[in-house]
């Protein structure tokens, strides 16, 4: 049996010819680099905060791009935001899209706050939004992609036993942008950019040992915390670079 994850000729050859000690030495730098690095850039341009009885809805931008925020990522943020002692009132994205149908379908959804203002002027639309209780719309754009991978693992089985030898690694990049719209003010309240990279490593010395980084889960946690702070902190949050610093 031979597993590739995915194969690369050069690294595969070196693994076959090496001993366990050599492999361990080669794997050491990669093992130490296994993990997640994250960067969050919030920018809030108003002092608006969410009040009691007001809700927030998380929606994916779906303008037929090759990539769009995964539904599980939307669900992760929606669920995480509503949990805990400081949980917010989060409206289900599916229920919101159904209630506002057809105005939030991929081809109809407002692309700017000007479009939103035009939409809310249509008969019955503003009343329906009020019925949902939603004040803040959070548009999520982005995705998690595999940006690099390499190495290889070779497994063999015989009468005396079975085992694997080799090293595989891969790197995923979770990049998401959240744009927050304030329906009451008909303006954009700000943006949050998240870039989380995760490198996973799987050395195999008889048994494969996976050290898996989960950048999407880390992005969900980070983005959730940022959105929570964004919506609850009136001042001094994500104000962008200090103008005095240039």
């Amino acid at each position, binding site marked *: 049996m031979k597993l590739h994850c995915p194969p690369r000729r050069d690294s595969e050859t070196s693994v076959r010819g090496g001993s366990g000690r050599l492999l361990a030495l080669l794997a050491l730098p990669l093992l130490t680099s296994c993990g997640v690095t994250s960067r969050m850039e919030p920018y809030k341009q108003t002092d608006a905060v969410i009040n009691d009885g007001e809700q927030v809805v998380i929606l994916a931008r779906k303008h037929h791009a090759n990539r769009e925020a995964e539904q599980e990522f939307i669900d992760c943020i929606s669920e995480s935001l509503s949990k805990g002692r400081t949980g917010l009132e989060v409206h289900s994205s599916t229920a919101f899209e159904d*209630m506002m149908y057809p105005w939030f379908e991929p081809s109809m959804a407002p692309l700017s706050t000007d479009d939103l203002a035009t939409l809310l002027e249509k008969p019955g639309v503003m009343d329906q939004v009020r019925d949902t209780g939603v004040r803040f719309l959070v548009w999520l754009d982005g995705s998690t992609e595999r940006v690099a991978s390499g190495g290889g693992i070779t497994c063999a089985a015989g009468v005396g036993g079975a085992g694997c030898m080799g090293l595989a690694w891969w790197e995923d990049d979770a990049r998401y942008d959240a744009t927050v719209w304030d329906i009451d003010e008909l303006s954009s309240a700000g943006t949050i950019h998240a870039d989380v990279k995760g490198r996973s490593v799987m050395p195999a010395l008889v048994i494969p040992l996976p050290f898996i980084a989960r950048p999407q889960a880390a992005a969900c946690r980070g983005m959730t915390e940022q959105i929570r702070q964004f919506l609850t902190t009136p001042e001094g949050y994500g104000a962008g670079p200090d103008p005095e610093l240039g």
Partner: protein
Amino acid sequence: MRSARLTVKLSAPLVAIAGALGAGCASSVIVQSDFPTPLIQPLPVRMGVIYSPELQDYVHAESLPQQSTWTIGLGNANLAMLSPLFETMFAEIRTVEDVPLDPSAQLDGVLLPELEKFEFDVPIGTRDEFVEVWMQYSLTLFEPDGEVVTEWPVSGYGKAELTGNREDALSRAAIVAMREVGATISTKFAEQPDVQYWLEENRNEAALSAETRLGN
């Protein structure tokens, strides 16, 4: 999108039987969903609608190269999508069998929706993450006497992440595409030039008959 396709009209049970017989080398999907009622103002016309047997029993069958044969039933979903749509779009809606209508029907026009094209793509490799569906309906508006006012093609595109099995993903993509079609019909129908002119004519006729009634 794949080129080799065959659209046949079968009933839903036949889709299930076809799926069972071809288990392992065939995929069978019956698209079913509840569609939301659109948030729009109704047009002030009394409309008849023809739900043809072809539309109600629509099945798309296609053999994909290097993949299985797909049989996709869309009949139930067609009705589930169009029925609440038309009920909200018009002041009055009634199902009719055919045109021309009997003058006693007292309808301003008749709509005939048809599903003309259905195309889909299911990825083979593990790196492709989305199932895609494209479909095109045709909406023909008739005068009560059977004269064609306009024929309007409406298309919709949908995609769905390939997270579970392929059949589920295809069903979700088809529902997204149908919602898009419903969105376009509900918001753009009255903006079609021929429909605009027809609506204006109907408004004038209604105003004229109201004046005549008042004069009498």
